[in-house]
């Protein structure tokens, strides 16, 4: 009986959280469209989120490209289809692997960072101090961070994709004696707008999800300093899970508009 009651409580809490998160998202759009806009803080956040994630995204992309090519090569060789490697790697990276891996890395780095930063600001009354000084903290802290993640994630995905393709081309160049020019020509011949556009649009939504969850968890952080850790941790877990849900919806919707 106790187990049933506990489960009921958890389910109810889950739906309450979804409701609050949705309300938080709607408030973002309401506040984002209303002046004054905090351009200075937005630029600062873009720099923090974009520039400081470049190395991590680049290194991960490079390794993904290398590993994917190394792991797939023997199988393609078996079927005499090694010349299809650039097409296969190009399409899989641009359509799915690049956006999802980059978004997951950013969920770990950005969502946890936002969750911890806003959580600590909440606990140390910095958000209250902002409000008392006549600043709308939601606009200054939340709107700028969500917008920055939305703007930066597609750029990071494109950057990560390029590095991953370079990693793959390097393996092909060393193992298969394929020139970089031939490799990239084949990749770009294989890619269509139907591959690029949905992936880029999807990245905007990934960015929105990461920013939204990070800000929500941090902004409503409770339980003192322990709450800061909880906010950072749950921000990563929730954002990562939601990314897969968003990905599934994006693949489903883009399947309607673009023939996959």
């Amino acid at each position, binding site marked *: 009986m106790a187990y049933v009651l506990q489960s009921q409580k958890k389910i109810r809490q889950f739906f309450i959280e979804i409701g609050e998160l949705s309300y938080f998202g709607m408030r973002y759009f309401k506040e984002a469209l209303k002046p004054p806009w905090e351009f200075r803080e937005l630029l600062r956040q873009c720099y923090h989120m974009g520039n400081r994630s470049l190395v991590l995204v680049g290194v991960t992309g490079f390794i993904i490209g290398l590993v994917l090519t190394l792991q797939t090569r023997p199988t393609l060789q078996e079927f005499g289809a090694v010349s299809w490697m650039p097409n296969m790697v190009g399409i899989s990276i641009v359509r799915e692997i690049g956006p999802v891996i980059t978004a997951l890395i950013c969920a770990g780095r950005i969502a946890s960072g936002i969750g911890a930063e806003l959580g600590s600001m909440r606990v140390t*009354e910095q958000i209250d*101090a902002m409000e*008392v000084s*006549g*600043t709308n903290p939601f606009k200054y802290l939340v709107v700028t961070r969500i917008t920055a993640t939305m703007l930066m994630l597609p750029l990071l995905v494109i950057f990560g994709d390029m590095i991953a393709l370079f990693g793959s081309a390097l393996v092909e160049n060393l193992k298969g004696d394929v020139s970089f020019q031939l490799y990239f020509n084949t990749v770009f011949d294989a890619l269509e707008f139907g591959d690029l556009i949905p992936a880029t649009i999807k990245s905007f939504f990934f960015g929105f999800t990461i920013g939204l969850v990070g800000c929500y968890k941090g902004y409503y952080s409770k339980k003192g300093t322990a709450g800061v850790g909880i906010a950072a941790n749950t921000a990563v877990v929730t954002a990562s899970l939601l990314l897969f849900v968003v990905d599934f919806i994006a693949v489903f919707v883009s399947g309607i508009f673009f023939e996959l």
Partner: protein
Amino acid sequence: MEKQDYISEQIDSLDQREPVIEIRDLHKSFGDNHVLNGFSMTLYKGENLVVMGKSGSGKSVMVKCLVGLIQPDSGFLSVMGKEIKTLDRKTLDALRSDIGFLFQGSALYDSMTVRENLEFPMRRHKEKLGNIRDTTPMVLEALENVGLAHTVDLMPSELSGGMKRRVALARTLILKPKIILYDEPTSGLDPITSKEIIQLMGRVQKKYGTSSLIITHDVDCARVISERMVLLVEGKNYVEGSYTELSKSTDPRVEAFFKK
């Protein structure tokens, strides 16, 4: 004139002074926890009023209700003749520029330097300051008032607890507020630093002629700074009077505050 006679004279003349803060029958609950149960008080122009109470007695909640950070369940709250509940965001923000708030933990913005911390409220209230372009003289003047002009380019993490509190006071003073709300100004500080902060509060009051509402449970702070005191017990104002009057009280609840 004896100090006691002077204080009694001051209290007699209070009724003729202009009230700047009026609280009547304030109620606030968090779930089943009734924090404020009909608290009432008046702060007069130029007065130093100390509100004392045990931890968790609702002092901070009361002061946060005054600046609109917490919405009370019921009661009348008026600051400089304006009823807080009826104000829209813009009017409330304008009113907040006349109220300085010194937070318990200083609440300096971690990601900004001391200069940026002081400039932050100035950017929000440009009209009040006459659209000044160069903020440096004002920032330095505010820091000189608290004896910390040399810290202008330091980060809050590089300051000691006492220095943080003084910088926070400088930030509070930068907009030349008419009322200053002090939330536990000496908590967490050593006795010497506490004494310095108390003296600083006195100097600020004399220099700017502000009205001060001081929330504390520090008897020494109350003794030095208060013209009048209100004791908050179980969410209500239990007793009111000068420090001398209350310190001589034989009521066990009042005595408990003054026992060393």
